[in-house]
């Protein structure tokens, strides 16, 4: 056979496989997740249901013979593509047209009286049919020249676009709609306007002596303060590490990883233990100055402390990169020309630092807006957008419209910050790293500035150490909240007790359920996230296809959406058919995959930028397809990116709370949601114990991932590898 014939027969086999899958989906597999109460078809597939009067399923069923017929005529023809597309559209439309409680519009009820009974969400049949339609669409597109005819790339693009559409854009769209839905379910501008301009969102009373400000004002105030302080601290730390003869640089770098693997809430709890009204330091201060101890830490102050502690390491890492990248020759030139160290710092170093500072500031600002764990523990009566959104959905007065409006506000603020960041950084050239050799010795800090930096950093380091000492000790003493420091393992037993009884290993500890789910979900989500992320990066970096820019923008958008907004949008979108998956473990996995995928993609893009195309071209010239090239050539070369993506997605899945708090259920509870419950109930010791265990598990897993992925073998003796450190 000629190569062309081989290719053609492979294509035919692939098409057959998709058609068989489609047949399986509409003829055999149960179409719905749960059957409608009074329908008992012989076969619960689309065919069986359609035959029993649910006639709106006929178009989906009939698409199968039509596709077979068209495929025999011309597999790459417009007719086949059109039919596959139509099948997919019909599938989606019927899902929305008949909801849980009946048809969406009256005309349908007239044609199919059974529609009044409603239908539940897709089961295996529905999902597999969607998969098969998409596979056929990608297949035909590739035959018609999409992605230069590479069927693997074409399928990858189609599937990723479909998944992004379903799990990123559809929920946001649904959420935006929910903001306009009035109390009686009608769609109107009025309710949205009322919600948007409610005084409790925009009120400025606290600035003019009143008691409380609106939530947006609170969020903005908190964000600006947290960003300013943590950027200043991060800069001081970066200058000390890069520009002084400070000895413990490695320790400081290692410590900066801590907040990333610290579960939420535990820092807030430690701050209460130290600075609450009966906290050690508050009591001490009250005794020294003879004042009545107060609840000063609850509210803006406390949240600010916790956020600065969490974000300073991030700004530090960003700014350290900037400081180290400044070419010392510029500073040397300035000093040679007669400027003193102070003048050099402010005229040369400072302007070069500005883009790094802007980036760090905006990053901290965005993180602060998205933060949920600290405001909920330390907020007292101080509400921010993320907590208000949570209570609007999880509180006793379920009000999705209110939550949706606030979520859209939060999303807009975040997008504005991202837009500012890209604009600010895009304008000027700050290039100082060039190929020319330089003296390599950075100038030291002016004396006064060094003093300021130390004065800021020492209290911060002491504060961090205090907080982590409380975390380390708190889980293993009787009651850290009341400073009863009798050592005990009682909390560990409450959380993780197990017995080996008659029926084998029995887990009685209250934390086991959530621990198992968390590990399972993270272990499934991490490789999937990495796969999707690296695959996307590969498509963007190496493939040419129509709509690539929009594709790249879409993937990044999912990164910009704050967790709380993702959570609410998933509730709005996936609590009802056709895709009704709340309360399952799948929704947790999906949430993590699409939230963290952009990080894998960024890491992948950075790695691909370093690798010359020639190796892949060589592989393809030798006859390997896209899939084989990706597996055999590309993946081994981008191992560092794979490692970064795996670790980041794993750690985030273990510690994320803002999105999952909306998605957990009794069956699938997550560690962070469980910890939040314990904190709310005042069981600080249990919360701290669990957090400590989680941190240890995470460190073990990171080491395991390192061993599993291994280093890439470049056939050189030494390699210099810049490792990007992910930030939450």
């Amino acid at each position: 056979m000629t190569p062309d014939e081989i290719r053609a027969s492979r294509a035919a086999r692939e098409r057959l496989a998709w058609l068989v899958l489609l047949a399986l989906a509409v003829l055999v597999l149960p179409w719905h997740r749960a059957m409608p109460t009074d329908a008992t078809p012989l076969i619960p597939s689309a065919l069986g249901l359609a035959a029993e009067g649910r006639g709106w399923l006929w178009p989906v069923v009939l698409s199968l013979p039509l596709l077979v017929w068209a495929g025999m005529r011309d597999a790459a023809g417009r007719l086949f593509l059109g039919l596959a597309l139509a099948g997919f559209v019909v599938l989606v439309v019927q899902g929305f047209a008949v909801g849980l409680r009946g048809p969406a519009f009256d005309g349908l009820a007239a044609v199919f009286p059974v529609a009044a009974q409603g239908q539940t969400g897709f089961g295996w049949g529905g999902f597999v049919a969607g998969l098969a339609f998409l596979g056929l669409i990608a297949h035909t597109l590739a035959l018609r020249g999409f992605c230069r005819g590479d069927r693997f790339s074409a399928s990858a693009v189609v599937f990723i676009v479909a998944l992004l559409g379903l799990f990123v854009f559809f929920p946001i769209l649904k959420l935006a709609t929910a903001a306009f839905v009035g109390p009686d379910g009608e769609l109107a501008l009025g309710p949205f306007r009322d919600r948007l301009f409610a005084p409790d969102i925009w009120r400025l009373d606290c600035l003019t002596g009143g008691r409380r400000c609106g939530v947006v004002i609170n969020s903005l105030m908190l964000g600006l303060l947290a960003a300013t302080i943590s950027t200043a601290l991060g800069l001081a730390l970066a200058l000390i590490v890069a520009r002084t003869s400070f000895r413990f640089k490695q320790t400081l770098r290692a410590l900066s990883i801590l907040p990333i693997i610290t579960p939420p809430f535990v820092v807030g709890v430690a701050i209460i233990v130290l600075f609450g009204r009966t906290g050690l330091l508050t009591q001490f201060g009250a005794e020294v100055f003879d004042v009545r101890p107060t609840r000063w830490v609850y509210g803006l102050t406390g949240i600010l402390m916790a956020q600065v502690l969490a974000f300073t390491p991030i700004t530090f890492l960003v700014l350290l990169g900037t400081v180290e990248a400044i070419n010392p020759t510029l500073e040397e030139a300035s000093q040679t020309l007669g400027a003193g160290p102070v003048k050099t710092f402010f005229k040369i170093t400072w302007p070069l630092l500005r883009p790094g500072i802007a980036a760090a500031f905006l990053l901290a600002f965005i993180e602060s807006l998205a933060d949920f764990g600290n405001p909920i523990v330390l907020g007292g009566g101080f509400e921010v957008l993320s907590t208000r959104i949570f209570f609007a959905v999880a509180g006793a007065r379920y009000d999705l419209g209110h939550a949706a409006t606030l979520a859209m506000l939060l999303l807009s603020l975040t997008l504005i910050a991202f837009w500012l960041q890209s604009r600010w950084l895009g304008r000027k050239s700050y290039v100082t790293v060039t190929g020319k050799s330089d003296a390599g010795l950075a100038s030291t800090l002016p004396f006064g500035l060094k003093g300021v930096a130390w004065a800021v950093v020492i209290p911060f380091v002491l504060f961090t150490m205090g907080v982590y000492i409380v975390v380390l000790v708190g889980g293993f003493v009787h009651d850290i909240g009341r400073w009863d420091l009798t050592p005990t393992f009682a909390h560990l037993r409450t959380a993780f007790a197990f017995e080996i009884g008659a029926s084998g290993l029995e887990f009685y500890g209250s934390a086991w359920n959530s621990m198992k789910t968390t590990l399972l979900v993270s272990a499934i989500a991490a490789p999937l996230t990495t796969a999707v992320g690296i695959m996307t990066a590969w498509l963007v970096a190496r493939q040419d296809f129509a709509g690539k820019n929009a594709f790249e923008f879409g993937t990044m958008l999912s990164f910009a959406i704050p967790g709380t907004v993702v959570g609410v949008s998933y509730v709005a979108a996936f609590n009802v058919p056709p895709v009704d998956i709340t309360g399952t473990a799948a929704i947790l996995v999906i949430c993590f995959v699409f939230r963290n995928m952009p990080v894998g993609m960024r890491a992948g893009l950075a790695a691909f930028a370093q690798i010359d195309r020639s190796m892949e071209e060589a592989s393809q010239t030798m006859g390997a397809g896209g899939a084989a090239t990706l597996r055999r050539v590309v993946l081994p070369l981008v191992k560092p990116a794979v490692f970064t993506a795996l670790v980041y997605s794993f750690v985030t899945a273990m510690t994320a709370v803002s999105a999952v708090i909306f998605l957990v259920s009794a069956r699938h509870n997550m560690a962070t949601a469980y910890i939040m419950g314990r904190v709310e109930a005042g069981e600080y010791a249990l919360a701290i114990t669990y957090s400590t265990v989680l941190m240890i598990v995470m460190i073990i897993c990171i080491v395991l991932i390192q061993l599993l992925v291994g280093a890439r073998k470049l056939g050189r003796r030494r390699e210099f590898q810049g490792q990007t450190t992910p930030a939450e």
Partner: protein
Amino acid sequence: MRKTTILSATLAGFIAAPIAASADELVLYCSVQEEWCRLMAESFQRETGINVLMTRRSSGETYAQLKAEEGQPRGDVWWGGTGDPHLQAAEEGLTAVYESPMLAELQDWAVSQANASGMRTVGIYAGALGYGFNTELVDDPAPACWADLLDDRFRDDIQVANPNSSGTAYTLLATLVQIMGEDEAFEFLGELDENISQYTQSGAAPIRNAATGETAIGIVFMHDAVAQAVQGAPIAAVAPCEGTGYEIGSMSLVEGGPNPDNARAFYDWALSPEAQALGAEANSFQVPSNRNAPVPPESPALDQITLIDYDFETYGSSDTRQRLLARWDDEIGARR
């Protein structure tokens, strides 16, 4: 081979979606203290081998969850929490009718709770509302009445839950309305608001905070205050002199839950004297509803407290509840 990666990746995402509940499970929504919830779940699991999946949420939140899951319920039993949201859920048909054979063994107030709901809920324990104060933070004279809470010396030093999320706080609202009359009660709550540092989400959180000294006074059910004192916290429980309301902690079966047989097994078991004796073990000192269950000696004796004739039917109804909560939001919550 080519498509297997994508295929398996996509399929794995859906793998858990259509799996129905397996036979040996029970999804328990629990609205008492975590410690007690855990003990109940564990004991039932030991006795029957049925795996209990338990979530603890305040009664208001659980009610909201049942409402959100209406149409495809995911819980089986809702155990514990004040009776009002249980009654409201019963009224809206969120919970199922069930007449337990154990009903004959119960106290009258527990049975009347069942009758009021058309057998959709049942009383499992009772406890009087009151407050607890931290004896190290509150000087003499010790507060003894509701009116004492308005004292200036407690400025920003009292906590109570938000009635929107907590049955405890709603009981306070309904109690004050019944003692004082509606307008006067809101006037009182408005003045009290000056002294409130925070409206918490969970009903018992205020007394936990009083025990650690984060606040001086927590308005809670008296048995919650007693529980803190028993554990060694400097807490004194107060039965307010003007009289006070009480709760009938209730249990309901979720209508259309995934494991109805296991749910009924739990329901009957939870009404047995043995199961009801577990409360004291978990530091919960409510008065149990089974006449044969031992009353913990620490329990605040209901016959020595001035109890009002709490009108459960009126204040547990949807209309009254929603009206009072909306008014609370407008007049009290909006100040925050």
